[in-house]
């Protein structure tokens, strides 16, 4: 049975249900659209490398990069590749791995039923052998090296490594060439059996679809399969970095034209559970907008002083087990950039009071951007929070945002910045050598 929630002003409705096997299903029909986007996600990502495999009693530490490796290998079967099955219908498919999730997706303008079966079947029928695992090591090795040469990624990961030293978050999502070399087919099966149970997964479809018919297809597919009863996951938490163990500053040299600075703020406060967590996330994002976006006095002052330029950006991220903010820019004056940013962060309440006249503007902008995102079936599907914020959607984010008042921000800002710890990761140029 589908429950439905209508968002009348936007003219959109979200349909949901949980199947008997535990799979969360979310359907958002989009009138007038030609494309259907489907994404199946497990609550399992790169940080989950230490756990008790399902059916065993002792925890096992798996090689870094295993979740991403599994993502690559799930497509390949004994006599075919799921990629090619999608190809037969012209659908495009892909997959990606983050710190806490792995997702498999397709986009199609025809044959939705057939493509949906392909997605459910390839994700739910693993096939790993030593030969197929070995073959992938060269490919993923090149993927890792591609990121090694990406200064933006290196800057981001340098910052995360400083904030979360010795925690799995600091390890590149794909692992290292050395760590993936240790991955075996048995490892992949152990990880698969533990985290790919339907009760740990969601399936979201957005676009051209009929909710009832789509649910019938999903239910029929699942009814043909037998699943073991769900059992609790036993992730082994990594040792937490104490606040005084956050690395204050690192410097690296890479092939960049100008210095790149990434300032990170790690939250040590507790993010509220469920929907309140989304409110926390939306609120802190607004705080960052007020302090640093181009409507702020800070922005113009620092831009005109050549401390920042159009490369400046910021982000705030909440995910399972971690939340942090980032301020990043290319700059000719790294020291000045760091000093100015730290000065703003040193007195957030006062800074917020200064920026208060811009609150309505910043809120309007955030509302407008979210409504604009409703044009994109991918944006709607990718914004589904899964278990993080109790299955909330982009539409829920909009509801929360519209109700937010300036006075709501201060306590949350104080909670994050008050207990937060900062780091700076600097990348400096080493010259290109031509011959």
């Amino acid at each position, binding site marked *: 049975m589908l429950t439905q929630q209508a968002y009348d002003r936007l003219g959109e409705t979200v349909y949901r249900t949980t199947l008997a096997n535990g799979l969360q299903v979310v359907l958002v029909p989009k009138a007038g659209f030609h494309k259907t986007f489907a994404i199946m996600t497990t609550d399992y990502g790169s940080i989950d490398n230490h756990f008790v495999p399902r059916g065993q009693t002792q925890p096992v530490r798996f090689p870094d990069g295993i979740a991403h490796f599994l993502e690559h290998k799930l497509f390949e079967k004994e006599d075919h590749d799921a990629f090619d099955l999608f*190809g037969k219908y012209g659908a495009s498919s892909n997959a990606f791995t983050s710190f806490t999730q792995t997702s498999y997706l397709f986009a199609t303008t025809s044959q939705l039923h057939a493509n949906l079966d392909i997605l459910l079947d390839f994700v739910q029928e693993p096939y790993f052998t030593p030969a197929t695992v070995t073959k992938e090591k060269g490919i993923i090795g*090149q993927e890792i090296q591609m990121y090694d040469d990406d200064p933006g990624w290196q800057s981001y990961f340098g910052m995360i490594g400083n904030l979360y030293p010795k925690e799995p978050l600091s390890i590149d999502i794909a692992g290292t060439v050395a760590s993936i070399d240790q991955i075996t087919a048995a490892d992949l099966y152990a990880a698969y059996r533990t985290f790919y149970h339907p009760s740990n997964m969601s399936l979201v479809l957005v676009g051209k679809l009929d909710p009832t018919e789509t649910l019938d297809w999903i239910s029929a597919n699942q009814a043909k399969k037998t699943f073991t009863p769900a059992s609790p996951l036993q992730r082994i938490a990594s040792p937490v970095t104490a606040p005084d163990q956050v690395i204050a500053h690192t410097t690296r040299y890479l092939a960049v034209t100008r210095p790149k600075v990434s300032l990170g703020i790690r939250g040590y406060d507790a993010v509220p559970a469920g929907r309140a967590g989304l409110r926390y996330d939306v609120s802190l994002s607004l705080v960052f907008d007020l302090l640093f976006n181009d409507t702020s006095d800070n922005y113009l002052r620092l831009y005109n002083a050549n401390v920042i330029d159009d490369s400046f950006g910021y982000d705030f991220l909440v995910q399972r087990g971690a939340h942090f903010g980032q301020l990043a820019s290319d700059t000719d004056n790294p020291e000045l950039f760091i000093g100015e940013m730290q000065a703003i962060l040193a007195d957030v309440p006062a800074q917020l009071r200064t920026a208060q006249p811009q609150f309505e503007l910043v809120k309007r902008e955030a509302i407008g951007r979210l409504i*604009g995102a409703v044009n994109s079936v991918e944006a709607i599907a990718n914004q589904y929070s899964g278990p993080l914020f109790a299955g909330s959607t982009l539409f829920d984010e909009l509801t929360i945002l519209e109700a937010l008042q300036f006075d709501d921000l201060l306590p949350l800002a104080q909670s994050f910045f008050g207990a937060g710890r900062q780091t700076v990761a600097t990348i400096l140029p080493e010259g290109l050598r031509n011959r």
Partner: protein
Amino acid sequence: MHLRIKDGVTLDLLPTKQFKTVGIKVDFVTPLRATAITARALLAQVLETSTAAYPTQTALARQLSAMYGANFGITVLKAGTQHIVRLTCSVVDEQYLTSYADQQPLFERGMALLKAVLFAPLLPQGHFDPTTFTQQRQNLLTAIKSLDDDKQYLANRRLQELLFAGQPTQAMSALGDVTTLGELTADDILATYHEMLAHDAVHIAVIGDVTVERAQAALATWPLVDRTVPDTLPYYHWTAKTTVQTGDDVAPVTQAKLNLAYRVPVYRNDKDFMATVVFNAVFGGTPLSLLFTNVREKASLAYYASSSYSSYTGTISVQTGIQAQNQTRVLAIIADQLATLQRGEVQPELLAEIKASLLNARLTVLDSPQRLLAGRLNAQLTHVTTSLTDWQAALNAVTVADIQRVAQQVTLQATYCLHGGEH
């Protein structure tokens, strides 16, 4: 709906209720001149920064926020022999806002903003503001230099320089070059500005729940004059070289970026255009392609190995990221795939899949306001509008023999490798 606004000024209206936004795009198009590319790129930066009514970045940003996060930007791009300065403004359709209090709808406000940017820029005493000019020139300079931080971009740029040596308009990026930029003055930019407004072809496009009357009424207040637009097609024709140009550079990279350029003398208005699109998709343009299958999936030599076709310049480019020591092997595999197609060896199943994926990709464009707007430029430049039905018929008609005929016209022109040197 296609309308003439003035001589040389057109409006495309794409009325739809599918989206929550109204999108506006204004293209200023002129034939590429090596001397003008950089000046136009800098002009775009300066115009994007402020206007007379919104004299600082902050004032402009606050106006955009007040308009519910209107997305405004100016970019420059190249299309064959043409240079384009593109303004875009996307606003929320206020019918989706819970409490919209302004008298004027957001589409009209978006048009008013674009009008202010174009016709009432910040010109104290008739000149661009010196501080803004100097700052934006410096920012563009660093932006151009920083492009090379992206090593895949850098390898591709060097490949283009090899391929189009001695043809600066083609070798240059749409942002221009740092030498010219360093010499530009505020007066140069002013001249470029007046030139652009007076003489460029102007193509405006609007998508959203907007009537033609509203679009025309908003445009009627823009002081655009008649202009004579040269009726040239955007195709860049060139002669194949008899020897393959090779180049490489050592840089501190972990992964070698190996790129190849081919000539294919087929342009968007040629009868073999669709066959070339299909050829490229089979060769390396999709994840089902021969390059993806053979370089990545079978040989495990790369994470990415793909090709792209430019129908304005008659070129096909290949990009790969590999271990430097595998260069010879990868080059051999790539050459083998081309030879396979030149022999006409394409599995019927693969051809059917490629066609299905191209159709799928074509239909997904219909769900993106940005891509629908951008797509109008092709029709303007080439004077050809292909209906979806005709496009599909052309796609279905492509045979293995057609792909083979195209493949036999594809000649390798340049190879370039950016690598870490001897370790």
